């Protein structure tokens, strides 16, 4: 068991470290600009200048604390949007790329079931998801300490830990695209489009009659503001994200088992 996961996971390791370095640099940048930002504005005056939709889109609640600043500059932008799109895009290549490049026959000629292949390849995405969430928190905590704005270690760790099921759910969206489309380029574009559309649906429909539509978006169930500003962890949201992931994985396995390659 897990031969494919080990193999693919190893192949993803290097890219995951580069990804983590990139995200740590983004974090460093956000933390570095924060002091001059808060000195110049001294509170939430800037927020009043923003249109409401903008605040809603980026889930900006406050800029008056480093926590609030990080919650939208780093976690909403970096984690919910960038990483969400990244894992959806990566997952979209998981099956379709092998089919597209003629590698799937070689894999499936081995005694391994299609369902297992899908599950193992999906599991290998835990490498980027976990590595980026292991390597960046120390950088963030260190940066906050350097600018003398200490953060709650527990809340920062929770923000990362709770992003893990969120990212898996995004990966699940990509995986489903990967088994539905056999051209990798299409699978990846659709995965990016769907993930971003879900983000918009969830963010922009809040407060409208269509708010309920956002319930299908993984973004609803991961809220960095809540974690960093209030220290409250939405475990029901975690359960929903896990359930979404399981369903997306299961449906992907079913689709792949039935498809002609």
């Amino acid at each position, binding site marked *: 068991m897990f*031969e*494919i996961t*080990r*193999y693919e996971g190893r*192949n993803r390791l290097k890219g995951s470290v580069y990804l983590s370095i990139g995200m740590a640099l983004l974090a460093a940048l956000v933390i570095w600009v924060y002091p001059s930002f808060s000195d110049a504005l001294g509170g939430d005056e800037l927020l009043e200048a923003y249109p409401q939709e903008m605040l809603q889109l980026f889930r900006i609640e406050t800029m008056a604390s480093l926590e609030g600043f990080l919650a939208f500059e780093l976690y909403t932008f970096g984690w919910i949007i960038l990483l969400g799109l990244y894992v959806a895009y990566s997952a979209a290549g998981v099956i379709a790329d*092998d089919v597209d*490049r*003629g*590698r*799937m*026959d*070689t894999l*499936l*000629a*081995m*005694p*391994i*079931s*299609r369902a297992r292949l899908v599950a193992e390849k999906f599991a290998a995405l835990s490498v980027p998801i976990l590595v980026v969430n292991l390597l960046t928190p120390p950088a963030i905590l260190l940066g906050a300490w350097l600018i003398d704005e200490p953060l709650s270690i527990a809340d920062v760790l929770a923000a990362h830990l709770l992003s893990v099921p969120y990212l898996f759910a995004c990966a699940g969206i990509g995986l489903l695209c990967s088994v539905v489309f056999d051209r990798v380029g299409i699978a990846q574009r659709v995965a990016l489009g769907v993930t971003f559309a879900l983000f918009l649906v969830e963010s922009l429909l809040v407060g409208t009659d269509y708010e309920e539509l956002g319930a299908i978006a993984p973004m609803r169930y991961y809220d960095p503001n809540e974690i960093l500003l209030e220290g409250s962890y939405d475990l029901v949201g975690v359960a929903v994200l896990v359930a979404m992931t399981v369903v997306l994985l299961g449906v992907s396995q079913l689709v792949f*088992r039935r498809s*002609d*390659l």
Partner: protein
Amino acid sequence: MAVIELEGLTKDYGEVVANDSLEFTVERGEIFGFLGPNGAGKTTTIRMLLGFISPTSGTARVLGEDVREERSLLEAKRRIGYLSDEPGFDEQQTGTDVLDLHASIKGDSRREELLELFDPPVERRIREYSQGNARKLGIVTAFMHDPDLVILDEPTNGLDPLMRQRFADFLRAERQRGVTVFFSSHNLSEVRRLCDRVGIIREGKLVTIEPVDALLRRSGKVIRIRSVDPIPIDALDLEGVHDLETSVSDGHEGTDPSTAFTECVFTFTGDINALLPRLADDELIDLAIEEAPLEDVFMRFYGGEDDV
């Protein structure tokens, strides 16, 4: 027990029937050639045998397992080796990485022996591989777990003549060990060198299935004769002489080329014992009896329009 049994195996894509009710068996320990021009449906058959695509009707059994049942086919796959017509390996990985992955899933009891024989550059990354090197690596992956049945799709594409020879010798040795080989090809010389039996497929339909030597017998011999003195053309007036071409060489100006020859070539499907007495009294410079190119036979099946 038959190693491969096709039972009305059909793949209908709507606008084209890639495989039309194929029905044949491959026995244990034989090398079976599956022949046809490009696009005849060979790869479709192979991909159904391995469960990559499912039949629209009919089925097949491989090592006794139904190809429509994933679970039972998995059991068979432990004992199957497969080489795709375009072996796809991860470009970023080295040959060793690829072999390690295969080894972890299906075993590699014969890896060293095969590496010695076919010698792909395993320390290099796949993206640097030539077509021939990828093929050599593919051969190693197909045989490394010591399978009972090997399915090869155009296995020698891209191999140089030396490697082709080595591969042919290797397959013959495998057959001696009881391994069954099913391979597709559009290369006729390869098939005649290796196969015990061949099935010929054209436009998705099985045209014929017979032992290679029967096929060769049907194709006849090419016979070339050169004589010192003119031989009357009547001497060759016997059953089984086709496409007779005659000529008269310099120095026999008095000879009428329509009634006699000093040089001739023809295809002969008759009894060689009936032919030789006809030449017994003539002084020959040369007599060559060669196997007719299999191409001629296939032209008959393919109606002389394809690229064999």
